[in-house]
């Protein structure tokens, strides 16, 4: 038993001297397995946003995830709105309320729309950039910065055109 424990001790990262505790072997073993799982739960999150100096490449990559999260929340919020309007399809009060709401907060709704256009266009163009990396295109440092600036320029162009329309 002792030899087997010495052989397998690296699995749970414990000391082989634990095997000398006789009848408490299973109890100690379980405690060590449990503590190793608890250590896994408090491990640091990835990526470490605060460790590295912000660069165009890393900032665009991080914002790609953030904009994806925002778009996901937008889908969830809109699906709740659609479902609620489907549930109250027989009520005219709900339509009156939504009409009054859209009239009252038209500027806010327009601003949210422009923000969503900005986020969606950024996620789309930067996603195309990520797809080109998956095909091993444009992986040189110079190309990374060039395509990053192209993404920012195209997003600005899309937002300006949308506002002008």
């Amino acid at each position, binding site marked *: 038993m002792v030899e087997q424990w010495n052989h397998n001790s690296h699995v749970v990262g414990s000391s082989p001297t634990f095997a000398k505790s006789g009848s408490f072997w299973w109890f100690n073993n379980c405690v060590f397995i449990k503590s190793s799982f608890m250590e*896994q*739960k408090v*491990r640091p*999150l*990835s990526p470490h946003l605060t460790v590295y100096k912000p660069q165009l490449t890393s900032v665009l990559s991080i914002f790609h*995830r953030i904009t*994806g*999260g925002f*778009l*996901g929340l937008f*889908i*969830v919020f809109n*699906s709740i709105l*659609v*479902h609620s309007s*489907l549930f109250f399809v027989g009520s005219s009060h709900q339509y009156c309320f939504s009409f009054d709401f859209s009239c009252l907060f038209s500027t806010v709704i327009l601003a949210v729309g422009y923000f969503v256009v900005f986020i969606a266009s950024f996620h*789309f163009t930067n*996603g*195309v950039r*990520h*797809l080109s990396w*998956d095909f091993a295109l444009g992986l040189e440092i110079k190309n990374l910065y060039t395509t990053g600036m192209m993404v920012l320029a195209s997003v600005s162009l899309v937002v300006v055109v949308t506002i002008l329309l």
Partner: protein
Amino acid sequence: MLGSLLKIFGRGFLHWFTQRTSACSLVVSVVVLSVSNDLFFGLGVFLLILVHFEAGVHTLVSDYMHDSRSKLFMNVSVDLLMISLAKTVFVLLICV
């Protein structure tokens, strides 16, 4: 061959593959949709967006949530939302 392929898909490759495939399809579909302006095609593109959304959320959950119960709760919630939204899209496809 099939067993090794299934092993690869079981080790997180499915998320990566689904996300990239749906992204490629979305890039093409959005360009086609801007030209065609078809409602049926638009609903199909929305289904693609849902698939991409699901793969993205699963990736975020795998990367940033370490508690197994929270992870399970989020994955099941997203799957239920996906089923609900897909049902709505198919109802709209039938009604239209």
